[in-house]
């Protein structure tokens, strides 16, 4: 059984509200966001309960970020101390989990991360770097985990996490969310299901606006939990957004605090990382209390929003059928995942290439990418990304990124190094990156100054 179910020990908690950090004074991602949550969980005395242990956050190292992202121009430019602390909190809990000090853990931290993609030219969807992806890569590099499942329970599609693990068959990314027709980031449809070698290891469950506890638990019980049983990951991680709540000002779902608590009880993730959630008074204090209790195996039935009555939201028959049909579609993709991969690979040559356009809503940046993955018969294959960031009519940066996967074969390593040597001479690019996950070494080459920097 994956996840923390049946394990003994405490629940680790890091509460880092970043009371001195905001995107801007009136932005939803501002100092006040976790204030009432602090008041509630401190007043509840949760940190004193024998089932819970509070930890002090630490700063992630720049290398932990470089293991996931190509930050343009460098990591220092994309992260503030708050980002390093939020990411570092997840790593502190990872260490505590691996040492057996805790049974499971919740990083109740901000700023969030799940909209950040592999290349980071700026902030998109309130995120600069992807805390969850940084956690996943840390767990694999430091502790040698192979298969990891990331369940994104934020109301927005976890498009950053999806993009980062797109080609990786060992990271199962499942995101349920309000559908992309009606909500940012406008993606996360059923047909987005991963790269040719990892088809159906990315699964998306778009849900209609107004989906209730009943609908979300239907998805959980009939799709997510059975798939996890089959996938048998080493670890289950929850990208725990709280904006499916019925009072969230940025979305339109009807999920309750009790629904969130029950979800975490059933999913029993090894680690939870806070993502979004902006009903700072009406939802967050109650949702967070419920999630902490559920993870710690405490009774959460007394958690209730002041205006909530069981049965307040009833799902229509139409909505029910719509959700059932989406679940059936996703289920069938999962069932034929191996066939999908075989068919895709039979139609492709040595490389798989695609073009992408990425919009950074917070920083108003347009990015154009050309990605190539080597479909190597002996290893996961190296990847290259040529990326151009533009704001308005001006080009910000034109960069070339090379990634060597863990357990890369010697051919891929040699070819990737060749690519690096070749591109650092190419004046078309301002920066060239080499992400060597196999040796855990990360290089940035400034083409103009001819300086190389490493993490």
């Amino acid at each position, binding site marked *: 059984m994956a996840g923390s179910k049946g394990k003994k020990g405490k629940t680790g908690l890091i509460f880092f509200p*970043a009371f001195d950090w905001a995107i801007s004074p009136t932005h939803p991602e*501002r100092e006040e966001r976790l*204030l009432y949550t602090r008041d509630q969980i401190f007043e509840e005395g949760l940190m*004193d309960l024998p089932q819970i242990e509070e930890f002090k956050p630490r700063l992630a190292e720049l290398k932990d970020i470089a293991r996931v992202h190509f930050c343009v121009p460098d990591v220092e430019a994309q992260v503030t*101390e708050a980002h390093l602390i939020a990411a570092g909190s997840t790593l502190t809990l990872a260490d505590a989990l691996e040492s057996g000090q805790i049974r499971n853990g919740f990083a109740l931290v901000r700023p969030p991360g799940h909209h950040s993609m592999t290349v980071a030219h700026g902030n998109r969807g309130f995120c600069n770097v992807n805390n969850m992806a940084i956690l996943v890569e840390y767990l694999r590099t430091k502790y040698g985990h192979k298969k990891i499942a990331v369940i994104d329970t934020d109301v927005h599609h976890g498009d950053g996490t999806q993009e980062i693990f797109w080609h990786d068959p060992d990271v199962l990314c499942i995101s349920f969310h309000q559908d992309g027709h009606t909500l940012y980031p406008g993606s996360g449809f059923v047909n987005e299901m991963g790269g040719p070698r990892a088809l159906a290891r990315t699964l998306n469950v778009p849900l209609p606006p107004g989906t209730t506890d009943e609908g979300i638990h239907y998805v959980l019980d009939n799709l997510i939990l059975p798939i996890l049983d089959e996938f048998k990951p080493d670890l289950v991680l929850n990208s725990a957004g709280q904006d499916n709540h019925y009072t969230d000002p940025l979305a339109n779902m009807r999920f309750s605090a009790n629904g969130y608590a029950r979800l975490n009880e059933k999913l029993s993730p090894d680690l939870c990382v806070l993502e979004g959630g902006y009903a700072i*008074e009406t939802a967050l*204090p109650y949702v967070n209390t419920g999630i902490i209790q559920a993870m710690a195996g405490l009774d959460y039935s007394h958690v*209730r929003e002041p205006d909530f009555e069981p049965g307040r939201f009833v799902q229509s028959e139409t909505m029910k059928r719509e959700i059932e049909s989406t679940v059936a579609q996703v289920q069938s993709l999962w069932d034929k995942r191996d066939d999908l991969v075989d068919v895709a690979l039979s139609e492709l040559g040595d490389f798989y290439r695609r073009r992408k356009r990425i919009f950074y809503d917070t920083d108003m940046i347009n990015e154009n990418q050309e990605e190539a993955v080597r479909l190597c018969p002996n290893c996961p294959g190296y990847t290259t990304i040529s990326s151009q960031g533009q704001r308005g009519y001006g080009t910000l940066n034109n960069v070339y990124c090379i990634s060597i996967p863990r357990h890369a074969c010697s051919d891929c390593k040699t070819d990737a190094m060749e690519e690096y040597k070749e591109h650092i001479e190419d004046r078309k690019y301002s920066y060239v990156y080499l992400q060597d996950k196999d040796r855990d070494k990360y290089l940035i080459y400034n083409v103009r100054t001819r300086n190389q920097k490493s993490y």
Partner: protein
Amino acid sequence: MLIGIDVGGTTTDAVLVEAGQVKKTAYVPTDHQNLLNCLLEALDQIIAGVQPSRIERVVLSTTLITNMIAEGKTDPVALMLIPGPGTNPQDYHLGDDTIIVKGAIDYRGREIQKLDEAGAEKAAADISARGFSKVAIVGKFGQRNHAHELKAGEIVSAAIPNAQIELGHRVSGQLNFPRRAATTMLTAATKEKYREFADHITRAFEQRRISCPIYILKADGGTLPLQTSLEMPVETIFSGPAASTMGVMALTPPDQTSVVVDIGGTTTDLALILSGKPLLSSKGARVDSLLTHVRAFAVRSLAIGGDSAITVSGNCLAVGPQRLGAALCMGGPTATPTDAMRVLGLSGIGDLGRARKAMEDLGRQLGLTPTEAAQMVVDAVVDKIVSEIRQMFLEWEEEPAYRIWEIMQRGEIEAQNVAGVGGGAPPLVPLIAQRMGARPIVPDYAPVANAVGAAVARPTLTLSLRIDTERGEYIIAEEGVTGKVGDRKMNLEEAEKMARRLLAERAERLGIGEYAGEAEVTYSEVFNMVRGWSTVGRLLSVRMEIPAGLLTGWERC
């Protein structure tokens, strides 16, 4: 003239201080059956030949409340909780005499569910029928809005005439409902007996014609007039370690970082003074099985001392945690660190022949010479104390933090001094200090440092002010006072000014007005409340404190 008396676990110590100097000391064995008698005996010894009118102040530190709780001699209390939504109150394990009443206040002090008055009446009748005369009433977020606690108090008061009722918000303004409940319960359970004790003290002092103010020492190293302390008896628990720490502060150079090591026969207590300020535990003290809001020094106690029994298994040696009696060299039954220190010439206490015999026996089991065995014992003791000190520093560094600057700023700290008090301190402190790369200090009055600490400690006081400018209200939890605020854009500076004024008023009422000038802001925060895209108000919190310190005029040795 100042008098300090500390009723400790084994002895009751007293000192007389005049013109910044310790003039006289006294020791009396503590009689746990009659704390009052031994306190007065120590007092009588110290005031023998002293004009009562020359005594300016007396400070008492007693284990009364600690003992009362440890021995289960507290009064029965019914606990009425108004928990609202959140944790199942049963998960707090606050005892069987807990009654839940419906009603809820939220984090901003808004009523989100009306108090179930009929339910409260029924609960009150039930409490009365079960014969309780003491009731603690605590609501979640009662410190942000005490209306429900007040109303429930009225209901209980009507149902049980002459009931002693304690309301949660008066006990602490801090967040943490279960701790507030526990602290309120303990207050209700100890108040009456504490008052009896205080009355005896007052009468005894009158009989001796001592008319100066009498103070009591609290767990946070501060003093409180005896009369005022009647309202908050629980604050006087654990005053012993606080007394020792204040004593070390009084007897060592100012503004330095020191480890306080109090080495007794059975246990060693550790405390920290960081840049001249005693370190308070970040959360309140644990009293028996209950976590409270009582502010106390961060003290760590380890079961090792001069009389700890030494045991050998195989070629491993263990010191403590048992104490079987005095050291062999003092006529006791077993080999102890005191014997080892005697053999090494680190101390001159006890019979050398017996000590040698103890180490010879030990050496035979371990295949060592007596001197080598003694060295091994002393090393083991020093190792254990040093590793515990390191752990304590580490814990301080690992305290959770909620702001970027707190995380960026808190680095490693190192002790400048290792200051020892207690019988085992003189031989061991230099060894501990050497290992820590710090300066050893064993003050002249180390054996009575606790009584000195009591004698020269000044009052402490806390006030928590919370302002919600959108709701146009302020509340001072400890005072149970609310008021109106007109300025929506009030800033932190104005809030701090207001807190300073309110603290001065509170200090005046509690009889310690002269110390209000020492108050400092120990915590403050301000948040803009943004609804939609505009600022609708501010939430400001200020905690103002007169911190632990020494009386002015005390000359440090």
